[in-house]
């Protein structure tokens, strides 16, 4: 059985709890970005772009046979890509309703809360909104 969103969050917080300077944290974020699965070329379309980021970010979700959602994401900036990878590491392959109702607090807990202000050029808030919106569509369908 899959781990729950809450479990995955806790594990992520655990990982970051060993890192106390920004450099190590960013290195881990960048690594997450690098390990993100390749983004299907056919999804690199304007309608999948998340607005509000200085770099371009694409997020797409597909419903799998078991009802879980599988997300693909990409960005042309590696830190943004790392941030979206962190988000996906928690939300990927979960049930739509779980995603919609999940409480996300790990960004504050791992010391990246400042990335969540609405003006942050990385658009993290917008990415999370998109991920949840996608889940919402599938929840209804």
């Amino acid at each position, binding site marked *: 059985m899959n781990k729950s969103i809450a479990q995955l969050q806790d594990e992520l917080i655990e990982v970051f709890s060993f890192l106390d300077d920004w450099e190590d944290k960013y290195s881990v974020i960048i690594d997450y970005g690098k390990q993100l699965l390749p983004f299907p070329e056919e999804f690199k379309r304007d309608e999948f772009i998340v607005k509000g980021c*200085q770099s371009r970010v694409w997020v797409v979700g597909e419903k799998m046979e078991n009802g879980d959602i599988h997300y693909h994401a990409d960005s042309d900036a590696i830190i943004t890509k790392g941030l979206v990878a962190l988000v996906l590491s928690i939300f990927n392959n979960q049930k739509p309703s779980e995603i919609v109702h999940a409480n996300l607090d790990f960004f504050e807990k791992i010391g990246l809360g*400042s990335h969540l*202000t*609405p*003006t*942050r*050029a*990385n658009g993290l808030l917008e990415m999370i909104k998109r991920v949840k919106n996608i889940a919402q569509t599938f929840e209804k369908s």
Partner: protein
Amino acid sequence: MDFDVNLIRQQFPILSEATVHGKPLVYFDNAATTQKPSSVIDAISHYYRTENANVHRGVHDLSQRATLNFENTRNELARYLENIDPKTIIFTKGTTESINLVAHSYPIAFLKPGDAILITEMEHHANIVPWQMACERHGLELLVLPITEKGEWDLNQLPALLEKNVKFIACSWVSNALGTINPIQTMVDAARKIGAKILVDGAQAVGHFKIDFKSLDADFFVFSAHKMFGPTGLGFLIGKEELLDQMPPYQTGGEMIQEVTFEKTTFNGLPFKFETGTPAIAEVISFQKSLQFLNTISLEKAHQHESMLLKRATDGLKEIPEVVFFGTSEQKVSVLSFNLIGVHPFDVGTILDQRGIAIRTGHHCTQPIMQKFKVPGMCRASFSIYNTIEEVDYFIESVKKAAKMLCS
């Protein structure tokens, strides 16, 4: 929320720090511009000392903070106007620019030759000249609703005017020269009935009462920060989203674009489509404090206080036989316009100035009103929340003195 004029005065440094010809300042020129509470003044300094950066463009922390604070003003103003959509708030440099923007962009999108624009005889030049220019550019007709001897809209004449193909109405809520509070809802409803759009000039309203833009339901609403305890260099245009969306941009340049090539340029969405260039950042950020100041006082009680001052001043001046009043509606903000018969307003202003009292004399940017009342100008004393009974009494005594010196 209680209303204590002394507590309010303490928040306005100029009231204790300024002297005029060696006398304490009595500031009765509030319709021209209001004074600023120290919270606003300090916010400007604080911005420049700790977070000055250009907005909307930077990844760096300073720029992010400035942008956040900048946009927070938009959000706070949206709440202040009873929860309108923040993206329908356009920052401009003042009421005048807001009107110019609408007079430029609205006709291009919506009007055609032969359509008429209705204004009133009591408008500020800022709400006359841009429409005259628009009429010239687009072949429109300019109609004018006359005012009565009391300084009120002559609503008897409205129906006939509305039959004349009126597609747009531009009128002020409150007259800056006469103080009349116009029956604005009547005009909004009249516009709705004939399917015309309406712009309300709120420049003189916002310093005196709370605006519930949602229930007013005008199509455009314009005002200036400096007349509501805010900084100079900042104004606002509030508009209906569906209209703003269809109107072409006004000034163009950075920020308001989506993509620029030499062949073709596409524009950004609201509100940025109408905001170009580096904005008045310190001004916008500090204006939040003006709103917070307004939120700490009961504007209803403030209005009572102002009305009391107005009544006292009016009664006092009535004792002077040479005084004539202009604007005698029952519905007025605390603006008192008068002349001494046979005396030029400039002379009265000069005498009062010597006694430390700042009133305005002249045509108040409303020459048609001067033509209507056949005077070269008027004396105008306009009171705000921080003015006191003692100041009003001193003012009455001073006008008496002026009458004695000038009317013999």
